[in-house]
């Protein structure tokens, strides 16, 4: 969605927000401040979701590859399951997708994570619960299916259904119009 000229409409301004999170290496990340000089392509996932969330992650990887790993674009996958998706889990998950540099996974304290999700208008809700034979609880999560793009002012300027197959080409096309 591009308004007059090449300036897209601002969907949400996250410029005043500040979320204290950690990445897959357990390094603190202040979002979005730490990426203030870059466009951000961001998806929302949890690692125990191998179907839709894998498609979202795969689309982020395809966008990055399709843009030839640009230095001015930060790729982010934020989890809405911070209890299970600790940094080490996200690190292994990222390795399975062979993510490149400028690709960060975000997790952290539940309060901060869900504040970020609220700000990004990403919904999640525990749905199905199960128990393993040794008594461990399993659960799955219903969630928004979203990839969004933020400009260098941390304004959300594009949103997409994150798992859809045509998303990488759309994101690349839209980003190339505004970069």
């Amino acid at each position: 969605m591009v308004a007059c000229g090449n300036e897209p409409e601002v969907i949400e301004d996250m410029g005043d927000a500040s979320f204290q999170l950690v990445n897959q290496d357990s390094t603190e990340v202040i979002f979005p401040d730490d990426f203030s000089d870059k466009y951000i392509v961001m998806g929302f996932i949890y690692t125990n979701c191998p179907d839709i969330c894998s498609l979202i992650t795969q689309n982020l990887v395809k966008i990055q590859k399709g843009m030839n790993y640009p230095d001015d674009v930060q790729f982010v996958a934020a989890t809405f399951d911070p209890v299970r998706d600790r940094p080490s889990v996200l690190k292994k998950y990222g390795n399975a997708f062979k993510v490149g540099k400028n690709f960060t996974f975000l997790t952290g304290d539940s309060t901060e994570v869900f504040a970020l999700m609220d700000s990004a208008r990403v919904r999640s809700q525990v749905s199905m619960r199960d128990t393993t034979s040794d008594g461990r609880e399993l659960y799955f999560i219903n969630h928004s299916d979203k990839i969004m793009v933020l400009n260098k002012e941390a304004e959300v300027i594009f949103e997409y259904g994150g798992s859809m197959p045509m998303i990488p080409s759309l994101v690349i096309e839209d980003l190339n119009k505004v970069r």
Partner: protein
Amino acid sequence: MRFLTIYFLLGFLLISGCAEEQQPTVNNEIVERVRPAAQGGTTAAYFVYENTYPGTDTLRVLRSDIAEVIQVHETYKTEDGMMGMREQQEIVVPEGEVVEFRQGGLHVMLISLKNELAEGDSVTIEMKWSGAGQVQKKLPVQP
């Protein structure tokens, strides 16, 4: 050969974790594979099964040495627009038809993996059908 949506499942899959070269099969536009995943994580298997048994067949058991829990899930959109997964308790396939375990639809969940699954490994899924009996499906691990 028509596609059919289905019902039921329990667990019986086997893994051979050896690294061997395998090309994924593209069957009815489904890339048959198991996604790479970390030990303790969850992954999905995608493949097509054709019922060549002379009659309607029902999947009774799945088993795996690699996962603590195996289920068939269906990805769906909730009434309020969220994406979710729900377990499918019954898989029934009429004679001559196929069941598709595909991305974004019905798929086999391998939950709480006992070992890492890396690209180059392979997974053998063992299914026990009421009519066809035991059937194996060997799948490559790839993204």
